[in-house]
């Protein structure tokens, strides 16, 4: 039974991912299929950031940096690995997908390590101070990536180069292009659904309650025997892992190039907006916000130069009408459940501590 409970989310995620690929995707054209992938990646980003900003109540604005770390790590592995295994950087289904999966998991782990390194000293800080540290981390990552060397694209050069040289040949300011397009709807939604199961289970588990207690009142939580720093670091590491996964999915998507400038703080803010709009602490809210905020700018494309103005106005009006986000801290399935009298009403998370 325990075994089944452990495996079932992955099985469910695989089934649902295949349903997305073969049931849902064929109804749309290639452009809308690409948007489906964008939505999936944004769901992973928003829900994972929600673990830190929503569950644990910390304010991180460096999520895109973890995404960049994971994306570059995974991208370097598939790109240079492909040259070693296949002799070129084209898509080779089968073996290539295995390489991509391995690279993605490694990318996630590298990002998780980065999350731990940043998290450990900085999570003793609170609120605005933590925000500044995460922002600073994001800028460090961006500048370091801009200083890397040009991507190599000749097989002979790559085979002659050492691992150290290859690890530094990440394209610099021009961006890391030329990665094989492995990201499919199946892969994207497999990771998205897996993360969703983890997040939902976490929210209702003892571990997750510890996260929430840190958010609600850190002093009270530590008085109850909760190691607040440890839980904050855990939230950070888990969020960074999935940000790294999202980075890898992003890196291998058709029509994207890893570019340090675009994975800077502006991208981080885009993710923060999704979390805030969905309601800090609401998983379904983050999902809905990710869907809406990915599709909205696309549907406004006809408005040409005015689209970003309209987009921003819509965001502002939504925040005025629903300052606690679309769902507040609740989930979509809890919307019409009246709060029990005994349960204390939580503070709207739109207001920072």
């Amino acid at each position, binding site marked *: 039974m325990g075994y089944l409970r452990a495996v079932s989310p992955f099985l469910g995620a695989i089934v649902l991912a295949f349903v997305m690929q073969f049931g849902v995707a064929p109804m749309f*054209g290639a452009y809308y299929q690409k*948007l489906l992938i964008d939505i999936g990646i944004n769901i992973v980003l928003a829900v994972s950031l929600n673990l830190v900003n929503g569950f644990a109540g910390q304010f991180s604005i460096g999520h895109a940096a973890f995404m960049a770390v994971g994306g570059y790590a995974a991208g370097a592995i598939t790109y240079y690995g492909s040259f070693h295994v296949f002799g070129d950087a084209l898509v080779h289904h089968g073996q290539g997908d295995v390489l991509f999966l391995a690279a993605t998991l490694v990318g996630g782990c590298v990002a998780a390590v980065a999350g731990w390194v940043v998290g450990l000293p900085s999570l003793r800080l609170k609120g605005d101070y933590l925000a500044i540290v995460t922002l600073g981390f994001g800028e460090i990552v961006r500048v370091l990536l801009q200083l890397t060397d040009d991507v190599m694209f000749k097989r002979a050069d790559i085979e002659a180069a050492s691992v150290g040289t290859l690890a530094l040949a990440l394209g610099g300011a*021009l961006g890391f292009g*030329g990665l094989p397009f492995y990201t499919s709807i199946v892969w994207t939604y497999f990771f998205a659904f897996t993360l969703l199961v983890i997040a939902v289970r976490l929210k209702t588990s003892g571990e997750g309650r510890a996260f929430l207690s840190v958010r609600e009142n850190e002093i009270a939580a530590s008085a109850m025997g909760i190691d607040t720093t440890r839980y904050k670091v855990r939230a950070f590491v888990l969020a960074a892992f999935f940000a790294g996964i999202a980075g890898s999915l992003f890196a291998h998507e058709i029509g994207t190039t890893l570019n340090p400038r675009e994975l800077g703080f502006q991208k981080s803010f885009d993710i923060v907006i999704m979390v805030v709009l969905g309601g800090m602490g609401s998983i379904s809210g983050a999902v809905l916000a990710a869907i809406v905020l990915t599709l909205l700018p696309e549907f406004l494309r006809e408005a040409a130069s005015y689209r970003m103005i309209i987009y921003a106005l819509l965001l502002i009006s939504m925040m005025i009408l629903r300052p606690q986000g679309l769902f507040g801290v609740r989930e979509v399935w809890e919307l019409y459940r009246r709060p029990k009298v005994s349960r204390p009403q939580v503070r709207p998370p739109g207001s920072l501590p």
Partner: protein
Amino acid sequence: MKLLLPVITLGLLALTGCSDKGSPAGAGPGSQAASKAPEATTIKIGEFGSMTGSEATFGQSTHNGILLALEEVNAAGGVNGKKVELKSYDDQGKSQEAGTVVTRLITEDKVVAILGEVASSLSLAGGRVAQQYGIPMISPSSTNPQVTAIGDMIFRVCFIDPYQGYVVAKFARENLKFSKVAVLYDQGQAYSKGLKDDFIKAFTEMGGTVTVEQSYTGGDQDFSAQLTTIKGTSPEAVFLPGYYTEAGNISLQAKKLGLIATMLGGDGWDSSKLAEIAGDAIEGAYYSNHYAAEDTRPEVQEFVKKYQAKYGSVPDGLAALGYDAARLLFDAMRRAPSLAGKDLAAAIASTKDFPAVTGVISIDAERNATKPAVVLQMKGGKPVYAATVEPRK
């Protein structure tokens, strides 16, 4: 408040729902133009550029140039009797947006060819999509060599970075009759290194001597050590293949050190900031560029006149390159047996001696443009047309 949330949610679901339903039939929001114009009488081409964002001036100039070319071709009856229709999208200077809009242009708007982008990183992102779908793309002004290396569908009408090294070498050797030149380049920049390598190769082949090779890193402020070494070799000129900020600072410090030599550079110098930084220290220096509005060739003068009549300003290099890219595409469309990706790409690839504003263009085997470059000289704080350098044979 109780009602508000369901209303918003339903509204958003309706928004996503209705537009999704329309997409398979090709009637999504992006293809409204398609239903208005009958397919048979128009040819659709796409453009992606940075109309907003930090490089907005690049995108807007290019767009103006393309629009001018489009107006002309339609006024003259279109291509093979069909009017050409342009679909433009803004990519905000972001590569992800570039990939998305190129996908949209190809799969929703069904364009036959794509024009764009200015920035090489964005051309790389969009170009890979175009290559994947087999739709030809012409970049007006992405000079990084990697762009056309994407594949056989990607072309450009500008020269590539290293080529300018040759241009400056030839100008220095043949026009200025220099034989001793020192080089000071930015080691952290592919652009600068590419120019330097090609310059040294060409200049030594033409019988010149490179006295010394020195380097700096972008952002450096003090160049006195390098300049002292250079001064010791007493060159007639110093080649500075970097950007205008460093070029300006180096010229200033060279003057202070009493290094008397002509400064030479590439299109990274092309900014009004150059004269602001260097003042009179940059007087008499030469740099290579894509085009000069003062060029006396009839194509240039006619283009400048038309552009000024339409937009009221002197066209910059990007506008000229946008205009050339569009006209070269129309020319290829006339010659192509059909507008299918492969035929059109073959027609573009076979372009020979096309009389464009930025010079006579031939497309080479690497899908790059072989064309002359212009050399400008700084006079009174302004760049002035000095010469045209023909490409190597």
